[in-house]
């Protein structure tokens, strides 16, 4: 592990790689852990080039088929999953130092990306799930009385957030699957992951249209460069909390589509009478520990039916085990302070509190009494008499309901969905979305494409028969314009 206090990162502009020495200016990002990151400053010329070469770049991208994209991703994954691949290894180490996440956890997240992209089937199935047909962008498909095909939206600007390395990567992957020109504004918290992705694109094939149309760089939100980025975009894909999204909404010009992800909260539901308590404790501990609970899919509350007192012990044991595997290395003062303050609040309010080195459990009988969640491996546990009591605590901001046994989902998904949940998963599976899953209640790829329809003429075929169309031409025209 490097002991240097300064990390130097490159940027990628329209597929070209620039180190600090290659550009006249660079900027320094400072971290509470004492590290500094030096990163080159791109200029407005990068966005001018995108405007100038937009047609040419899109022409190359539109020519790509799903097979071409899947093959590129497969090559990417081959390199990415190579245990000796130095770009990934260095990114793991640096991302861990900058984000405060355990390196092992970052490595697991990176592997998920590689595993997903290794198989052509994943890429094709994902596009099919999202756009209804894996070839939706490759050819015209006959639908009722029209031929339809999806085209890239144009230029997608990704405003990333650093709490979940995988989310950043997938934002870019979605932009590539829809053959868009992608501009990624890297997050301060984790500048490393998106740049490692871009570096790998570059190494796989620097001349590939997906590489040539990718820009990954940093600029402050309040800067002329940010305004220039918004001006060139057709779609803005934004991740983050309320304040971040509000700032973005103020900037996005009229006519530019905004696709925002977050903020959301998630929960777990366990019926101890119907599952293996040991497995429930292990999976609950994993879900609470991953991303130090800072992802929107991390459960913040647990609604539990059954003998809780007996179950607390195995839960504590598995949380300690999780601390061993993925230690909480958070040095963020705000995050630590929120946890400490919440613990005091719980003590004042007489809630039952259990805490370990990295985690805190609080048993609160009235879920409405909990107003804020400090994250940081803190679980509010609400005992319930009936699982059907849970739905009334869900909100339109609920993202994932993780349940055990899985059958709880079958029994209660209608009431949970009606109350606002957008994913129902088996406990422990929230960070591994299954094929066909939705994201934040929508199909993200549909927001990154422009659908085009070529419709049948007056004499074209009709799904429900051609009775109305068996007229001579003159009569058809008369029907359209002069019929009384």
């Amino acid at each position: 592990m490097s002991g240097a206090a300064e990390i130097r990162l490159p940027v990628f502009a329209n597929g070209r790689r620039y180190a600090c020495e290659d550009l006249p200016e660079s900027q320094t990002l400072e971290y509470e852990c004492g590290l500094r990151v030096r990163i080159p400053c791109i200029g407005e010329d990068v966005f001018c080039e995108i405007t100038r070469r937009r047609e040419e770049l899109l022409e190359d991208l539109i020519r790509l088929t799903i097979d071409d994209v899947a093959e590129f991703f497969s090559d990417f994954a081959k390199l990415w999953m190579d245990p000796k691949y130095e770009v990934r290894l260095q990114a793991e180490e640096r991302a861990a130092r900058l984000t405060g996440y355990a390196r092992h956890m970052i490595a697991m997240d990176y592997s998920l990306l590689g595993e997903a992209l290794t198989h052509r089937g994943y890429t094709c199935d994902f596009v099919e799930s999202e756009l209804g047909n894996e070839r939706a962008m490759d050819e015209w498909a006959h639908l009722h009385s029209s031929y339809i095909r999806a085209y890239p939206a144009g230029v997608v600007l990704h405003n990333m957030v650093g709490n979940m390395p995988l989310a950043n990567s997938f934002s870019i992957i979605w932009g590539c699957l829809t053959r868009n020109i992608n501009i990624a504004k890297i997050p301060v918290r984790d500048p490393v992951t998106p740049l490692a992705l871009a570096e790998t694109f570059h190494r796989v094939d620097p001349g590939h249209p997906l590489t040539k149309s990718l820009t990954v760089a940093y600029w402050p939100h309040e800067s002329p460069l940010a305004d220039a980025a918004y001006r060139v975009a057709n779609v803005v894909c934004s991740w983050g909390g309320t304040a971040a999204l509000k700032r973005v909404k103020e900037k996005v010009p009229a006519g530019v589509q905004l696709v925002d992800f977050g903020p959301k909260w998630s929960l777990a539901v366990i019926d101890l009478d119907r599952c293996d308590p040991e497995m429930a404790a292990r999976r609950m501990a994993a879900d609470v520990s991953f991303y130090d609970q800072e992802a929107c899919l991390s459960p913040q509350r647990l609604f539990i039916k059954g003998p809780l007192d007996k179950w607390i012990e195995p839960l504590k044991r598995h949380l300690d085990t999780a601390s061993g595997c993925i230690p909480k290395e958070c040095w963020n003062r705000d995050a630590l302070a929120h946890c400490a303050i919440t613990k005091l609040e719980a003590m004042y309010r007489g809630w039952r509190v259990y805490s370990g080195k990295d985690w805190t459990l609080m048993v609160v009988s009235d879920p409405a009494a909990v107003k804020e969640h400090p994250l940081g491996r803190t679980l509010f546990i609400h005992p319930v008499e009936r699982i059907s009591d849970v739905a009334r605590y869900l909100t339109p901001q609920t993202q994932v309901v993780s349940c055990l046994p899985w059958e709880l989902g079958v029994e209660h998904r209608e009431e949970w969905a009606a109350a606002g949940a957008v994913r129902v998963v088996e406990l422990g599976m929230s960070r591994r979305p299954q094929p066909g899953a939705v994201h934040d209640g929508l199909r993200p790829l549909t927001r990154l494409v422009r659908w085009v329809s070529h419709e049948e003429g007056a004499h074209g075929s009709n799904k429900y028969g051609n009775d109305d169309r068996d007229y001579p031409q003159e009569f058809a025209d008369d029907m359209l314009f002069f019929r009384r």
Partner: protein
Amino acid sequence: MTCSFSGAEGLLPLDRLLAEEGMFQIPAAQAAELRRQYIGAALAWHLDGAPAYARYAQALGFELKAVHEAGGLDRVPLLPAVLFKRPEVETRHPHAGEVLWTTSSGTKGGLSRVPRNDLTLRRFFSSIAMQTKVVLDVEHADAHLMVLGPTAAEARDLWIAYVMAGLAVFLPLTRHYVRGETLKIDEAIADLQLLAGKHVGLIGPPPFILELARTLAARHIGLHLRPTSQVITIGGWKKRSGEAVPRTEFDQTVSEALGVRIEQVRDIFNMVELNTVIMECTAKRLHIPPWLYVRARHYGDLHVLPSGETGILSFLDPTAVSYPGFLLADDLGCVVEDCACPCGRRSDILKIERRLNTVESRGCALKLESTLLG
């Protein structure tokens, strides 16, 4: 409002200290002993009469006698400021009698409500009165106070208005320039022009002061106030945090526009839960008065940090009798202990770094579940 507080005899010497002109000349050891006494008495009052606080202390394993041991003040149970934002949580001392519920502006994560009875309010005003004289050096009977804030009557229970009113009480020539939540900037400028050669105390939140200074500069209006006039900021930038400028830039801009000496651009620290104000001297240092125990605490386990180290700020304020004034703030900062200041005073010095950031700012997880059903 009448004072229904009784049994406060043990606290009365504190009232004498609040009005003590030599409060910053008390030797450090003696000040520490006074603090221990007054905080111990306040603690006994709250443990004896406030069941919720007593239960909390018990849950934390704290006993009153600990306050007399070495490091005892560091173990006093602290109420996180967030508790005052929970309407269903009772922080009011049951024997405090009639109280006024003072509130924060609620710009950051909900409205704080702090119950203050007559004695608590009187002590607050008393501490302001003497500190205004001994730290701000304001004792001119002819000083004109211009408040860029609403009158206490218009502000109702808004605490910052009380703080400003507290300063105004002792200076009869006072005008307010915020009405209906609007800063009457032209009125303020007209009055400033009329006050040439006079000693003026201009007080208000930093965005209003800056707006006034920039307007004066933009209109090329030169003022001729007495150079010893003062500009005193109170409260933060709140909803206008995007307009915040570094302190040195702020002081320079304001000093130039208003024609006051740069050392006379001062700040006052207070928060709605705290019953004492902390004022800045000419060396721009916040002097902690001797009855108040302020320490920075470690982010993780809340142990008290050594002098000068940054952490979460905690306050033990014995002047509050209608609620326990033992607070863990939402502010980060440090305390430099027993500091000899260039202004000639010797005291603990408070340095405020910033407010805690919300958890939401760290990602896409929703922290505030204000819409939780049920």
